[in-house]
């Protein structure tokens, strides 16, 4: 703790000295430098380059370190507006409020905070606001715990928002920047959530290569949007998102239905941008394999090591990493797995939401035996040994 000091009169916000560029340039063209940093620090580096107008924070483990850092970035002048709000419903409402004003808004939370803010968050896509929400997954069930477990992701799968699942610190940096731009394309105009498994990524250090902080993304242009900003700069027109459509008649049903259809169509349209910025919405290793692992987030790291160790023992195992949970890369997944014989779906949650997603996509399109696991939950990690054991069992069960 120390006492606040006012900025000197000639203070120049550091953000003013950064050059604006596109996400394509930032992520695909600029030279990069390799750092060894935590996931929270990777988030800070992304936020520093994301040209955020307004960041609104509320503490929760394991997220706090990220929005704390955002506070320091605000102090240095990389972010224009920042405050600690009352709690998460307040945070999510205010973040949407700022986004409605036409500025780029960002916040971050974890498990219970996400659940608390859920009502507000699930209203974002229909409101066609474009905030970016960083989500550091944490147990939400009782008994209370702060450990990583990504069940919370499943609660948002059907909201219409863009959902990315980062595997590691590097992804967290790249995906955050990609999200900040893609959300604002006129044919998208949707919010995005970038999830990572808490602690495993946020508090652990790993290699992250990043471009120079002399650059930041192009600013949000509040005039370019699928729906007008709430700035009273347009002639009065009723926008259906803000009219109470609740009369029981077919006009209102139809209005609501078509509004939703458009939200989900916009979500699909975002896919092409991520395809480019993330170099594909899935990553495939050993495409010719008969045994495949498909997963997202931290589970990919464990699967990668399992694939490597199996390789050291002369067994070819394939891996599909899913980067965008929404829009779900259905076609690419079907193509990657259509000749697989056995499929394993490791997950860091009890419900197995990825298993359900994959099963529904592959139904009728693939003859593989799909194994319902392995899974860990409640905070523990998944040892590579466990993935290898399950692979062995699958080979035995489905010769």
């Amino acid at each position, binding site marked *: 703790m120390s006492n606040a000091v006012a900025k000197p009169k000639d203070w120049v916000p550091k953000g003013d000295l950064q050059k604006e560029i596109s996400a394509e340039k930032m992520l695909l063209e600029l030279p990069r430098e390799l750092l060894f940093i935590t996931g929270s620090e990777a988030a800070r580096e992304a936020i520093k380059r994301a040209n955020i107008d307004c960041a609104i924070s509320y503490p929760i483990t394991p997220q706090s370190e990220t929005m704390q850092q955002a506070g320091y970035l605000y102090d240095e002048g990389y972010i224009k507006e920042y405050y600690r709000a009352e709690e998460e419903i307040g945070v999510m*409402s205010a973040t949407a409020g700022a986004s409605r004003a*036409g500025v780029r808004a960002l916040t971050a939370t974890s498990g219970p905070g996400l659940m608390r803010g859920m009502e507000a968050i699930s209203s974002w896509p229909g409101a066609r606001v474009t905030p970016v929400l960083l989500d550091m997954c944490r147990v939400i069930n009782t008994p209370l715990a702060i450990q990583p477990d990504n069940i919370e992701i499943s609660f948002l799968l059907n909201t219409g928002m863009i959902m990315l699942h980062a595997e590691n610190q590097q992804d967290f940096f790249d995906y955050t920047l990609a999200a900040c731009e893609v959300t604002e394309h006129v044919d998208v105009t949707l919010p995005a959530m970038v999830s990572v498994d808490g602690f495993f990524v946020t508090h652990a250090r790993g290699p992250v290569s990043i471009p120079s902080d002399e650059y930041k993304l192009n600013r949000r242009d509040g005039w370019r949007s699928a729906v007008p900003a709430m700035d009273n700069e347009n002639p009065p027109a009723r926008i259906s998102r803000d009219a109470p459509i609740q009369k029981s008649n077919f006009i209102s049903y139809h209005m609501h239905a078509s509004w939703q259809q458009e939200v989900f169509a916009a979500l699909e349209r975002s896919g092409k941008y991520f395809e480019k910025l993330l170099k594909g919405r899935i990553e495939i290793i050993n495409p010719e394999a008969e045994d495949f692992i498909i997963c997202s987030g931290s589970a990919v790291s464990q699967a990668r090591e399992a694939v490597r160790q199996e390789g050291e023992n002369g067994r070819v195992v394939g891996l599909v990493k899913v980067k965008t949970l929404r829009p779900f890369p259905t076609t690419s997944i079907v193509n990657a797995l259509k000749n697989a014989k056995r499929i394993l779906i490791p997950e860091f949650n009890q419900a197995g939401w990825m298993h359900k997603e994959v099963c529904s996509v592959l139904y009728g399109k693939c003859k593989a035996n799909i194994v319902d696991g392995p899974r860990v939950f409640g905070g523990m990690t998944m040892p590579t040994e466990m993935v290898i054991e399950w692979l062995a069992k699958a080979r035995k069960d489905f010769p």
Partner: protein
Amino acid sequence: MSLDTIKPSPGFLEHLPIEYQDLVNHGQYGKKMKASDMGKFKELIEEHPMCAGCAMTLFIRLVFIGLPNPEHSVIVGTAGCGRLAISQGNVPFIYGNYGDTNSTASGLKRGLELRFPNQKKDVIAMCGDGGLVDIGFQGLMHSWFRNEKFATIMLDNEVYGNTGGQESGMTLKGKVLKMAPRGKVDEKMDVMGLAKVAGVDYIARIAPTNPGRVLRTVRRAILVAREIGSSYIQAYTSCNIEYSIPTPDVMKDAFDIEKERYGFEEIVSDRAKKFLDEVEKKKK
């Protein structure tokens, strides 16, 4: 926005709906209307689906006329009867989730200040008593403690009207309503007192008995919010349905309640007073 923004290109006006033409030719933009002008100009809000004779509607209509700068105003509302009318006004209206008005308005106002450094935008959070002090309590209080620069208007009908007549925190002790089968146990919440404790710069309690006074109060609250800090109006807007007030007696009820316990009161901070004095001096 300004009158220029809503003015269509030459030749198009006659093809627009008559309501729109009236808005352009006889609207409120750029002018300051008096209560006695009612009926002589195109109001920002006219049609609405609220109950016939509802006092809340009258009050909302007056708020729109009182807006000091409707062409640069945004209203934030929430679930509740009032939003049925507010959403029909010719001022952008944000309809968020129940109870989120003051959190949403905080983000919105700060965002608008970033985007329009040279044009003040008035943000007004206006909603029912339940939305504001029951479900919206912490958003409300914290926006005040943060001294957010927007006006908050409570449409206090002392009941959850929209969901069919349950007690709210603003219901008087002893009133039997839905979910209060033996009468409300606790006192009506002292939100004026809370506003004072939180340091709100302009606080007013009012009943819609004197239209001129409503317009003046709304203007003062919005001007203070624009230049000084948070402001709050608590308006008695009876629910004739749930309180079984015969429609012809709605105004009589308002006068009675005003006399009994809802008299006009202003609590103005020193800095807000100084500011308002200057504004009013300049006008003379």
